[in-house]
């Protein structure tokens, strides 16, 4: 939802690494209260809220502890580094990011949305660069269908 990456790509049924847990651990260590608040807000709103509105609920206004946490989590999935959620602003004084793990760097989704690979970690055959990459869906999964609120409370 936050990242724009399909859930089954972020956390496959049979994960080959532990990045999801490492990010959760980093978030919890950073600000457990804000993390719990973010999850609670998401859990309460998700079943009945269209995605665009849900993003609005989580990220606006931008200067709350939960919005900071949401942004740090997005940055973690994309870059593989943890940006301290309480020190994202101002940009000139942003805390030095901490690379979460080798896997978190090499699997970062900023490379995937570029339809590429982390610099220093490709898994393609010789000469792949001479042609077009696979389509974006192959890197980030199929976008989930929009939530459709129903009177019964919609999908979970």
């Amino acid at each position, binding site marked *: 939802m936050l990242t724009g990456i399909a859930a089954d790509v972020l956390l496959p049924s049979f994960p080959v690494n532990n990045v999801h847990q490492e990010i959760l651990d980093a978030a919890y260590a950073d600000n457990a209260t804000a993390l719990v608040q973010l999850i609670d807000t998401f859990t309460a709103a998700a079943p009945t809220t269209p995605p665009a509105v849900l993003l609005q609920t989580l990220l606006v206004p931008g200067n709350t502890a939960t919005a900071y946490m949401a942004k740090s989590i997005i940055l973690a999935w994309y870059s593989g580094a943890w940006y301290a959620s309480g020190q994202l602003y101002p940009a000139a004084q942003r805390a030095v990011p901490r690379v979460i793990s080798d896997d978190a760097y090499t699997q970062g989704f900023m490379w995937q949305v*570029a339809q590429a690979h982390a610099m220093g970690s*490709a898994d393609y055959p010789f000469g792949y660069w001479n042609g077009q990459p696979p389509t974006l869906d192959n890197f980030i999964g199929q976008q989930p269908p929009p939530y459709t609120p129903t009177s019964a409370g919609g999908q979970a």
Partner: protein
Amino acid sequence: MTAATEPTAAPAYDVVIVGSGISGAMMAKQLGEAGKKVLILEAGAPLPVNIDGYLHTFFQSPAKVPESPYIPNLFSDAATFTLANPTLLNAPRPTVLTLSADSWQNQSQSYLDQQGPTAFASTYERTNAGTARHWLGTTLRHVPHDFAMRSTYGVEIDWPLTYADLEDWYGQAEAEIGVSANVADQAYLGITFPAGYEYPMPALPNTLVDQYVAAAVDGKQLDGATLTVTTTPAGRNSRPYQNRRACGGNTNCIPICPIQAKYDPSVTLNAALQTGNVTIQYQTVAVSVDLAGDDTNIGGISWVQYDGPDGGVVGRGTATGTIYVLAAHAIETPKLLLMSTNGGKTPNGIANSSDQVGRNLMDHPLYLAWGLASKQVFPYRGPLSTSGIESLRDGAFREDRAAFRIEIGNEGWNFPGGDPYTSLLAEVLGDDESQIGTAGAALVATLNGRYTRQFRMAFLVEQTPDPENRVTLSPTWKDKLGLPRPQIHYQLSDYTKAGFAAARQTADQLFAWMGAEQVTDKNPAAGPTTFSYEGQDYIYYGAGHVVGTCRMGGDAATSVVDANLRTWDHPNLYILGSSVFPTIATANPTLTIAALALRAAATVLTQLG
């Protein structure tokens, strides 16, 4: 291991080499295979069993720069981005993180004692296998006129060598490195090959970025040249070679190829050690080149050995050989020569009767142009660079301004703009005031649209030799061993600045032909690497091509070494590496460094008899 010296004692080795980088390793391998006993003194950390540790350090680093993987670590505390203090390190080296306005003249961060007026913007390593640990892999030959600038265009100086003198040695260097290229692509501007010559491997495939530039540029006329996008010869395998696999396109040649498909000098250094005739002492810094009893030949090289990057001294001694070879890079080599005063017998240093040691420091200052292609070109894939425009490396314009080659980059805006990080942070976090950014599907769409169209071009501008651009000994700043650090004076000449102006005009024309949106910063804030020329502001970057501090020449009065790289002053002392280049020329220097090292090895073998 090394004999404590007595002037009359027999030398312990045939040859003592300072430095295990590409020059030292190539010399050692040639000598070792010929049965000569060789000792290498290497200032930096030992060869690791494999590169896993380097890769892990790179992945974990909060700054992905050329020095990230290597020892000593860039930071004393990475969590707070606290740079290591070179005063507290045994064999420190300059790093790109110490080139900022805040750092470049802060000698608690910058190893170089930079006196300006502008910053010397290139760095080097002091570690096993040397700076080519993190070279790009470009293996261009010089064009013939690069050797003859004075006689052809009336500027700079001529080399005491011609292209013809080096042609066969280029071939041998290409074999040792393992170069992928096609002869038909590389025979331009007078470059020739022996009949039937083939590169060790065929050329690497080009990228979609290359194809995009070529479609718009090939065949266009500019400055008297017909422009062509050419596949760049590369020390990267296009098929298995020397027990190393073919390139996997990891887009990480600098700072480290994760599969060693890119050649680095550890290949040659390991081969040298496997001859059984080559010994290496790591963490051993040469501190003086000592005269023999005849006050003409060299009798030994004194060294100090330390324990770890910030550990204590564990040994001192003097290495003795019949012949001595300095291959310590173009800033450390003159530093060592200048330090070697021999108790006042050589007050200006060893090999310095010409007063040329340390002078004529050069680089290829880079003009960067970057922007968004008019269609998706999918960067961040393939080797960092696979093609360039070489057509403007030579021409009558060299009478008036510096020439350049144009390197096409495959890493988006990583070099000029710090992407993909910069765009990611800007999108997710928004500005400081609203603190509202982008998320979800909109974030994906925005980043995908931007990343997949990014590209950059680097113009490697020729820098003139200037005797006042020089390396001297810092009177103030020392490393942990108490050795003086290099002091640097540096600026660009008008000839070079005119080359920058031509680079900007050329970039603007290329982007117009491509229909690309250029976002080059043409009004950089004043800083250590900016200058103004004819009403325009420019910023330059270092190419890592540190050249020129022990120039070779045909006259002992005006040069440090002769055409065989033997010092004029000392019959048994040689100097290798880019420090001997009289001019920077228009090619990335590594292949010429290697060719000269192999040629000098043959000379040394002849002298040894």
